[in-house]
């Protein structure tokens, strides 16, 4: 289909903006960069917490203690400082589970995006460079996969493979490649006309060398921005699948399955679902802000 993806169309800056608008645009960019840096800071905190989880989590996230089940957060009455964010229906410490849950989200997010990016970039490069039938085949593949909503594809594959952390990474990784492929292909097609590539061919450089030494480095900024934004998408999707019970299985803590378990308790023990929900929101927001800022910083005139 001839329709551009949302990522591409989001901030089209065409033509020559008038002077006032240029100042306005610059101001916006600065603001976005500021927000982006703050977001990056928050993200760094989240990542650090996940990496150092065994050292900072106050309790074992799997330790069942039914005598202290459904304890409210420390600042409410009946809450204790022993469990800052309260406990879940079998007495496990919520804060510890949240910290460890972050690990799942980040691992799934980063791994599956790396997988998607690898597949997508390779295929995009191949399509844009070799053109002809290869291009047609890959373009069709892209169109077919883009037809399926991410969610639906994930559900279909989980149905067959069964719910687990690894399967989710595979599914999300394999389902996410079209976006990279499309953009990389477009850029590669454009770059392929450029002098240094033509010269390279004339000099007898091998395909591989041309692709990886000359073309690919120009694509880095595009790939990084798309990847960053996709991590957020994947994290939300992973939480949704876990929320349905089709992702990470309890007792392994994941923000999504904690939300799912906590749903029944929303009317009295609200903390069980609320904090994981907030975690998902904050993380996603931070990644989006950082991604937007990255896009501006790497190449403001990027048709992204």
């Amino acid at each position: 289909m001839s329709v551009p993806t949302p990522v591409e169309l989001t901030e089209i800056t065409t033509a020559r903006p008038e002077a006032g608008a240029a100042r306005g645009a610059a101001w916006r960019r600065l603001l976005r960069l500021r927000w982006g840096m703050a977001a990056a800071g928050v993200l760094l905190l989240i990542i650090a917490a996940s990496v150092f989880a065994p050292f900072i989590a106050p309790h074992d996230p799997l330790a069942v203690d039914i005598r202290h089940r459904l304890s409210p957060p420390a600042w409410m009455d009946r809450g204790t400082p022993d469990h800052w964010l309260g406990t879940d229906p079998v007495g496990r410490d919520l804060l510890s589970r949240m910290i460890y849950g972050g690990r799942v989200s980040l691992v799934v997010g980063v791994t599956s995006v790396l997988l998607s990016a690898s597949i997508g970039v390779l295929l995009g490069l191949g399509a844009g460079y070799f053109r002809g039938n290869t291009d047609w085949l890959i373009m069709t593949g892209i169109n077919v996969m883009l037809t399926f909503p991410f969610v639906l594809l994930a559900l279909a594959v989980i149905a067959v493979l069964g719910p687990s952390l690894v399967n989710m990474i595979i599914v999300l990784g394999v389902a996410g490649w079209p976006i990279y492929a499309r953009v990389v292909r477009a850029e590669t097609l454009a770059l392929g006309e450029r002098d240094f590539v033509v010269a390279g061919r004339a000099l007898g450089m091998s395909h591989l060398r041309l692709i990886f030494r000359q073309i690919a480095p120009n694509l880095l900024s595009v790939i990084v921005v798309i990847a960053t934004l996709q991590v957020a998408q994947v994290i939300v999707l992973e939480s949704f699948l876990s929320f349905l019970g089709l992702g990470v299985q309890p007792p392994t803590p994941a923000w999504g399955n904690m939300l799912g378990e906590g749903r029944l308790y929303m009317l009295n023990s609200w903390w069980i679902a609320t904090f994981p929900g907030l975690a998902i929101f904050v993380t996603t927001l931070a990644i989006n802000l950082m991604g937007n800022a990255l896009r501006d910083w790497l190449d403001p005139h990027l048709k992204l």
Partner: protein
Amino acid sequence: MRRYLARQVVQLVVVILGISLLAFGILHVLGDPVLLLLPQNAGKEEFERYRHLLGLDRPLYVQYWKFVSRAVLGDFGKSWYADTPAFKLVLERMPPTIYLTLCGLVVALLIALPLGTLAALRRHSWVDNLCTAVAVAGQAAPIFWLGIMMIIVFSVRLRLLPASGYDGWQNFLMPSFCLGAALAPITMRLVRSGVIEVMNMEFIKTARAKGLAESRVVTKHAFRNACIPVITVLGLQFGQLLGGAIITETVFAWPGVATLTVESIRNQDFPVVQCAVVLLALLIVAVNLIVDVIVGFIDPRIRAS
């Protein structure tokens, strides 16, 4: 124009083939189809018979052919749980999903069109910044979280709306709003981009030069032409919308295809899952085609070629 349409149809056929391959691949290559497609209480002879029926002893392309030839006739096997044909089950649940998706689209547009246009016209102003900020925050909020909160506020605490069910128009309000609100941020940004692109075009400058009032410029010229990129993008959005509808349905226990699919996954009822995936994909393809045709009619550039 004719060439454009023809090209679209060819692409459509290719994409449909691709979908069938994908659906086939997922079930037949990733898993053991006999184990997945037969009810669990079937005996050993049933397994062997089915294996032969599906042609699993034959090469993959034969299996694929059998799958496609059956699917075209609407035979996706029988749901083991309900003992009815999978196709019938999925088809029955399509209308609620489609209605929800459309209502979600309406809500998304109601929010996104005015806000996006406003943001585009007052580009770089505080209005624009506010809209963008809200959009970014909105994009980060998980849909299912929003849905749960809405049920608590509007059903339990305020007792204004029903918590679930599919009886009347009141049941549509929360799910549509949830879905629409979830998609509004990105739609808004697309509308904004589309309007900006159009506003910068030559004919707008001409209209202004001719001395037309700004409001006329916006409504008569800009808006009509902005429709093109917006509609094109909305066409793609249908896939996203459906994805969002899938999530919304599960939160509101909506009797649509998504809840059927999730339930079938839990019940290990694969014929239904496979059928649902294929039919939904076909639906998206159909909508994309319709959108492309509409665009073909509206966009003078395409009409002329």
